[in-house]
């Protein structure tokens, strides 16, 4: 790679040819504020806060638009730059409502931080501020089904419009009017209707675009923990950060505060879809199962202990029936769970194990513009790649095989159906035939393992409560066949257990122990049997994250915030603009 070497603030830096001065500064931890530039959206050159002085150039330059060249001498701290930059900030804040105390971005807002570091101490604006749609949070207006827009806070960086145009490929946001009266808007105020809409909150450097889901829910400092994990909403496997709210155990409300995307150049870049971002409420929803359930003689499901449930299971499943056990496996199951289930099947049905397992998942087309640069795949399950690696499904684009069990079940040839679905309700696909067969007695025994109450668990004889994906360490292979680790962020409710362990417990209760004591041992066993398979290669060495403590919480977030934490706050003294020419103009001294 060709390199150029140039000087910033007296430091020699070497960067790849074609890098802009701003990118070089970011890479080398030199503070230059920026708004309209975003690594995922490119250069716009409209906000003007990234001004620097470059020797031999007649005026100050916007560093985001100047490509670094050999021998260039850049100064980001000369008095001229400091003053000009402070001037730009003063203009940005002329009409800004500064309602940080009630603004959702407050605490993680680049406008706050950069203004504090580079702006003037005080505003000289003495006129009423321009407002759109009202004052304060009353100015929050509908911006589609997922978002709210507060135009008073907008600084016209056009990131949102460029995101919709360049990434979503569907230019739903435009800039209405011009100059002083410019507003971000959708056609006739119909709002943003896009499966990528949540990213607009991430790219917006101020609190102008907020999500209905996270609005007023938590302040950044109330989410002191964040865990880097992956989304299991579909087979893309976006890298995400799950934000966990600090909350005493007895307090009401949920712990999951929000989900934001995490940069991964190969998988999701800077983005994620709304299904993954907003579709996590089931994890702490009312339908969660927190104790094993066993159907009593009178037909009602009753909560019980693990010992009792496993004993009931062993009692109901006599040795003679083992050959007639069939498994319905959701592609939401992780590698560990699929492998453990495979082992259990081998112990019960023997050689026919492979064909006793039907794998199910949902497929849904997502409405997206053809020009989108972020395609949300149709397959709504994270681990079809795993099912293929374990030989449970076949082909380049496998199709669900769970329905192949249907004929057997309906003919009454199946003694017991074991359903494992660690996903949200119904993630395994249509199992209504199994429910019907259980109700009319053609299926004598239905065992359901999963985190939420569904039609299947309601019809089941024994229900074993499992974990949602944020409650366990597990591994998945996405549509590229890439092995990824999903790390535990929160504890499962009540007695719910990690799903691989439930399978091991079931095996032990039936007298055919699998012999694993930890998920890590399962992963080692996978590596030992299937080590060469690309979808599992390296599984034994997979690293799982732990919630990051408060001190580094911002590092876990989107690139804006990560940058802020990495670079900005390491500098102790803010680089403030001192109004030396007019020392009398200070609050309190003014007459």
């Amino acid at each position, binding site marked *: 790679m060709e390199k150029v070497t140039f000087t910033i603030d007296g430091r020699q830096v070497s960067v790849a040819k074609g890098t802009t001065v701003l990118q070089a500064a970011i890479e080398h931890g030199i503070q230059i504020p920026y708004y309209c530039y975003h690594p995922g959206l490119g250069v716009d050159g409209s906000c003007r806060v990234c001004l620097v002085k470059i020797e031999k150039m007649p005026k100050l330059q916007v560093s985001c638009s100047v490509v670094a060249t050999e021998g260039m001498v850049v100064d980001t701290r000369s008095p001229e730059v400091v003053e000009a930059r402070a001037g730009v900030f003063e203009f940005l804040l002329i009409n800004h409502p500064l309602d940080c105390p009630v603004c959702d971005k407050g605490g993680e807002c680049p406008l706050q931080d950069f203004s504090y570091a580079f702006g003037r101490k005080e505003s000289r604006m003495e006129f009423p501020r321009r407002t759109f749609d009202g004052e304060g949070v009353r100015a929050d207006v509908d911006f589609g089904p997922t978002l*709210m827009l507060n135009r008073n806070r907008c600084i016209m960086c056009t990131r949102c419009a460029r995101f919709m145009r360049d990434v979503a490929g569907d230019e739903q*946001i435009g800039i209405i009017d011009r100059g002083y009266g410019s507003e971000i808007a959708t056609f*006739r105020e119909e709002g943003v209707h*896009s499966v990528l809409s949540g990213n607009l909150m991430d790219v917006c450097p101020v609190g102008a675009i907020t999500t209905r889901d996270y609005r007023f829910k938590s302040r950044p400092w109330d989410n002191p923990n964040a865990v880097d994990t992956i989304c299991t909403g579909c087979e893309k496997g976006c890298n995400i950060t799950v934000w966990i709210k600090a909350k005493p155990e007895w307090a009401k409300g949920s712990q999951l505060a929000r989900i934001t995307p995490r940069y991964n150049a190969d998988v999701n870049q800077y983005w994620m879809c709304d*299904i993954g971002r907003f*579709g996590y409420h089931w994890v702490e929803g009312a339908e969660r199962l927190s104790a094993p359930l066993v159907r009593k003689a009178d037909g009602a499901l009753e909560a019980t202990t693990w010992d009792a449930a496993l004993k009931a299971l062993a009692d109901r499943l006599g040795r003679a029936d083992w050959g007639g056990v069939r498994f319905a496996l959701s592609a939401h199951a992780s590698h560990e769970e699929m492998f453990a289930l495979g082992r259990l099947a081998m112990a019960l049905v023997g050689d026919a194990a492979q064909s006793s397992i039907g794998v199910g998942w949902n497929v*849904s087309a997502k409405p997206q513009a053809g020009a989108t640069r972020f395609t949300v795949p149709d397959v709504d399950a994270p681990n079809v790649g795993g099912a293929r690696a374990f030989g449970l499904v076949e082909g380049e684009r496998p199709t669900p095989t769970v329905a192949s069990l249907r004929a057997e079940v309906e003919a009454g040839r199946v003694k017991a159906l074991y359903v494992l679905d660690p996903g949200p309700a119904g993630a395994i696909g249509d199992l209504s035939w199994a429910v019907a067969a259980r109700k009319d007695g053609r299926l004598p025994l239905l065992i359901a393992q999963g985190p939420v109450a569904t039609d299947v668990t309601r019809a089941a004889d024994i229900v074993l409560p499992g974990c949602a994906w944020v409650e366990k360490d597990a591994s998945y292979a996405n549509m590229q066949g890439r092995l990824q680790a999903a790390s535990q962020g929160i504890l499962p409710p009540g007695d719910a257990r990690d799903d691989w362990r439930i399978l091991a417990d079931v095996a032990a209760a039936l007298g055919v122990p699998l012999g694993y004591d930890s998920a890590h041992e399962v992963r080692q066993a996978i590596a030992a049997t299937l080590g060469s398979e690309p979808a599992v290669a390296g599984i034994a060495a997979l690293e799982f994250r732990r919630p990051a403590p408060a001190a580094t919480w911002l590092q876990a977030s989107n690139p804006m915030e990560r940058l802020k934490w990495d670079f900005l706050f390491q500098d102790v003294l803010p680089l403030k603009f001192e109004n030396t020419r007019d020392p009398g103009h200070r609050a309190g001294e003014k007459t």
Partner: protein
Amino acid sequence: MSFHPQMPYGTPQWHRSERVLADEGPPFAFTPENRQKLEEIASHYPPERRVSAVLPALYLVQEQQTHLTGNAMAHVAEVIGCSRAHVEDVASYYVMFFTKPVGKYVLQVCRTLACALNGAEHVTAELCRQLGVAPGGTDAAGEFTVMEMECLGACDRAPVVMVNNEHWHECQSPEAIQALIRDLREKGVAALTGCHHTKE
């Protein structure tokens, strides 16, 4: 609108924006002739830059029905193959696109420096007095709209009045404007000579 079976989010109307929108308007489609004209204009741009034809398309809408409506803008987007937000973006940027009904003749009086110094305000005042409207308003018969504009690019012949985006009437005075209105009433468009002032 729901994008995904897992996400049945509704659209609660929490707070509507106060932004003033163009009327929805009656259903709109270009007449075959206008459509043909548009295609002709669009053929001047490279195919991947067809979106550049939004401006002429919006002019054609105004020829066809005097002002822009929501339906018309949506139709333009469809015909051009760009997003509706983009059309609204363009339409709201330029003052020569009208999002409210205007009269048959739109009299646009320049009020920028040269014209202002030469008494443009008297021209506006006279126009408004004669037609009984305020600047920006349309007379009762729906015939004339008076608007104040920024520099029309004919500063050496100030004050300038532009009629319907094509006809410049230069070196205007309150007296001359009376004659213009009379002529327009009597002779219609024929009075719009696009006259460029020649006498010294």
